């Protein structure tokens, strides 16, 4: 039977997967960890709200933000959520080593069709909706983590606090093959501010070896006023030189893709570390030696063996489970990317219930 390919004719020769958007959770609809976190600044690199979107900060910045999954979205585009950074403590005089950006990392095994590092390498186009209080020049980058190569492009916020769609094309890179594995190979960055160590001279607008001083050249300081907000949604990175409409995925598919990197037992809307809702917990029965099984397998196979956070049912204390109505110190052991061998319950009582919540983290 003949198979007809449906899609962008310009991409007819590209072995593009059905998921044409390399970005995961580009519509910001998934936020398993939290929907709002205050005081994001020095020492807070990591994942806080919208799944897959990581904060990087360097230097001892005085700036602080509230990071949230917002319902402020561009009108009539089909989006329900956005990612928001709201400056709550300003830093008007950046030290040389200060920097903050939002970024996402991608596994190399998902990117082999880009043919990076070959004469047939593909161009990439990044499109997104952005709304910022501060007008001016902003920098976005691609970084090849396997080969320490980078490229940057700018976009301009011309109207304060107004949703604007931006489209940026990055040239193909015929140098630097991406690893065919589950490690971070390619990364996309959105800069928020950068001190002079990474914000001098001219931006590196062609692929080449990463140069720190040219990483964020020209970037405005989003942290220079507590009036400043920066919001983004509809982020899509795809093969080619034109941006197609944002590819919306069914909710369950989008969540499954996120769960490869992070998942938890909490009810939708309940926040790990805050919620004490008994409905968040899993229940298993102890073996005769007092140790306990984990409810295997994970909902979704994970990228790599995850880090595990356990809490007793109804409690925010970590490193414990509730064993027969007593909270006991517990470790997860024999951890794989599909499940956990057992829970080592200190002085656990056999034949008792074990009630606990969990978080599994296998992020890049």
């Amino acid at each position, binding site marked *: 039977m003949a198979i007809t390919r449906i899609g962008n004719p310009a991409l007819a020769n590209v072995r593009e997967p059905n998921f044409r958007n390399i970005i995961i959770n580009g519509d910001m609809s998934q936020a398993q960890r939290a929907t709002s976190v205050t005081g994001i600044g020095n020492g807070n690199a990591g994942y806080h709200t919208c799944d897959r979107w990581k904060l990087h900060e360097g230097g001892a910045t005085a700036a602080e933000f509230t990071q949230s999954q917002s319902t402020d979205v561009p009108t009539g585009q089909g989006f329900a959520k956005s990612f928001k950074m709201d400056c709550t403590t300003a830093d008007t005089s950046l030290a040389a080593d200060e920097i903050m950006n939002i970024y996402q990392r991608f596994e190399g095994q998902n990117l082999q069709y880009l043919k990076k590092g070959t004469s047939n390498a593909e161009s990439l186009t990044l499109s997104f909706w952005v709304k910022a209080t501060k007008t001016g020049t902003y920098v976005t980058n691609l970084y090849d983590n396997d080969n320490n190569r980078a490229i940057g492009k700018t976009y301009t916020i011309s109207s304060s606090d107004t949703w604007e769609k931006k489209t940026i094309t990055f040239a193909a890179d015929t140098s630097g093959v991406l690893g065919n594995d589950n490690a971070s190979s390619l990364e996309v960055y959105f800069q928020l501010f950068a001190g002079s160590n990474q914000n001098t001279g001219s931006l590196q607008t062609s692929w080449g070896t990463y140069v720190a001083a040219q990483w964020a050249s020209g970037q405005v300081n989003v942290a220079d006023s507590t009036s400043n907000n920066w919001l983004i949604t509809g982020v899509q990175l795809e093969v080619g030189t034109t941006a197609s409409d944002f590819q919306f995925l069914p909710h369950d598919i989008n969540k499954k893709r996120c769960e490869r990197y992070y998942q938890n037992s909490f009810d939708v809307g309940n926040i790990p570390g805050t919620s004490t809702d008994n409905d968040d917990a899993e229940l298993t029965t102890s073996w005769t030696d007092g140790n306990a099984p984990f409810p295997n397998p994970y909902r979704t196979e994970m990228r790599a063996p995850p*880090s595990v956070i356990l809490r007793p049912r109804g409690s925010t204390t*970590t*490193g414990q489970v509730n064993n027969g109505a007593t909270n006991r110190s517990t470790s997860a052991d024999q951890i794989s990317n599909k499940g956990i061998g057992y829970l080592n319950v200190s002085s656990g009582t056999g034949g008792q219930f074990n009630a606990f919540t969990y978080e599994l*983290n296998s992020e*890049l």
Partner: protein
Amino acid sequence: MNIETVEKIYDIYTNTFSVYKLTYANGIICNVPLNEENTDYQAIQEWAAIDGNNIIDPGA
């Protein structure tokens, strides 16, 4: 997040070192598998390489 302490945990069935108990500066405790693909494992190796940082080993 900043690392506060790291302790070796031994598999009670095999008596072999099998997982780390990682305590962050904010008090959150997690178990980290001995796998180089895990970013917390990578962070522990970097932390342990700094003079003055020691991994607690209670023994099997």
